[in-house]
């Protein structure tokens, strides 16, 4: 039900991001979704990849601090208000969104958002109750 996301700590130095993508490329890891959150000093790179194991060992070998986090992938109606419906639902149920980002996909396919939530288990339950599709890990990694 959850997706394992990889997060990497980066200093705000030029070239660090490129270094990460380079390492992943060399290890034949495919990036599915990516978001970079930054402060003036550092950034946290969040990745959904097709092979977590390979990605993490490659990054650690090169001295990067990398961790794994569980996130929830949700299918969003591809129309105005689609995202809003999901966010209000979560808000009504007092579930906080720590961060979110979109999944890279080709046009014509479903719109998928990655959510980091304060109470993922409760969130998944509520989403399913409201007929909102939660996509599980295996499906995501296979995309």
């Amino acid at each position, binding site marked *: 039900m959850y997706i394992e*996301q990889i997060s990497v700590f980066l200093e705000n130095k030029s070239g*660090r991001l490129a270094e990460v993508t380079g390492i992943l490329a060399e290890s034949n890891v495919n990036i599915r979704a990516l978001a970079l959150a930054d*402060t003036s000093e*550092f950034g946290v790179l*969040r990745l959904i990849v097709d092979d977590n194991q390979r990605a993490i060992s490659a990054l650690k070998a090169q*001295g990067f*601090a990398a*961790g794994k986090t569980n996130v929830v992938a949700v299918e969003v109606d591809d129309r105005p208000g689609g995202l809003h419906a999901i966010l209000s639902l979560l808000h009504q149920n007092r579930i906080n969104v720590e961060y979110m980002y979109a999944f890279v996909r080709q046009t014509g396919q479903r719109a998928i958002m990655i959510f980091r939530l304060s109470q993922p288990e409760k969130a998944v339950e509520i989403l399913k109750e409201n007929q909102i599709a939660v996509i599980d890990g295996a499906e995501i990694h296979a995309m």
Partner: protein
Amino acid sequence: MDPSMHNEMRQLQLERLQSTINRAYRNVQFYQNQPTRFHPDPPVVESLDALNELPLTDRKQLARNYPYGMFAVPLRDVVRIHTAPGSGAHPTVSGYTRHDLKMWREIVSTALTAAEVTAHDILQIALDPGLANWARDYKDGAEAIGAGVIPNTVLSLSKQVQILKDYRTSVLITTPATAMQLAGYVAQIGYQPSIFSLKNIILVGEQVENEQRRLVEENLQAQTWLHYGLTEVPGPAIGFECEYHNGLHVNEDHFFPEIVRSHQGENDSQDAGYDELVLTTLTTRAFPLVRFRTGEQACFADELCQCGRPLRKIFRLSQRADNLVSISGVKVHRELIEFHIVNALNFLPRYRYCISHGNDGGGYLELWIEVDETFFSDEIKVLESQINAIDDRLREDLGIPVAIRLKEKISFK
């Protein structure tokens, strides 16, 4: 120099040294427990040279004897206690009897008089909060000379400058960093130095480069004088410049200086060692220090000064012998930084720190923390709250500006 004067001073020092040692070993358990060849009796130091038989005292030992372990008089005789952040959970303390305060007034006035301060002067003190103890000592010493004193208040630069101008301050006591800031500010707002009545600026708390001194002297049209003291224990103006501005005279009536070859770590072979300034108090009653390691590197001047004083001069070297950094006079101990990191994070990551300077010349502590898996979170707010936890603790304890930067492993190579 008059040999009889020299001989008299050495006799005075020997007498004072012997009674200090007798009092220290009699009243302070720490000294009583020291292994000397005279143990359990107090040692007999037969000459000033023979002092090097006795063991050295360092800051760690002072910290271990918190709170009263190093006091040589009953607590009821202690009329003032100075405190500093220290190296861990406890502050560093130093105590003074009424007699000690009188001695410090003398020590400070000797140094001020050498800087040509007289009863006709108006003396302004502009020191950072971390040097509040010194601010009091300088005020007392200046008042003993009869000078008018504008004591230390934390004011913005522009207000300090206003007071300097409007109250016709003739002597300013401040840190090199603040003096530079004032000089820069004055130049920036276009004030002509002639609007000030400033004659002498006494620089305390930190070392200063010759170019910086010249800059300050040019911009503020006043003569600078260096003083040297120990911020935590025991006090200011232990060393001072005379009119020849060539080294620091040690106030040898009250402190006996030695230069001792010390080693930093346990592994002596790796470390050639440093020439460390070691001080023994000669007149202090509440808190006698026998062979106290200052952590400063220094050397003695080869000859006595042209000014005629029988007091030996020392030259400080720019690098410290210990691992302390000093910001605006506040000593920052490695142990204290670790203490706060561990309290905030519940473990100790790899870290590094140094003193940095902002654009305005102000000094701050820059602390780098290595991010590894134990520490790392995917959420920025979590990382930020960890930084803030360390920041708050350090700022509160030290009272100096702090900048904490999270770094990758690669930055520590």
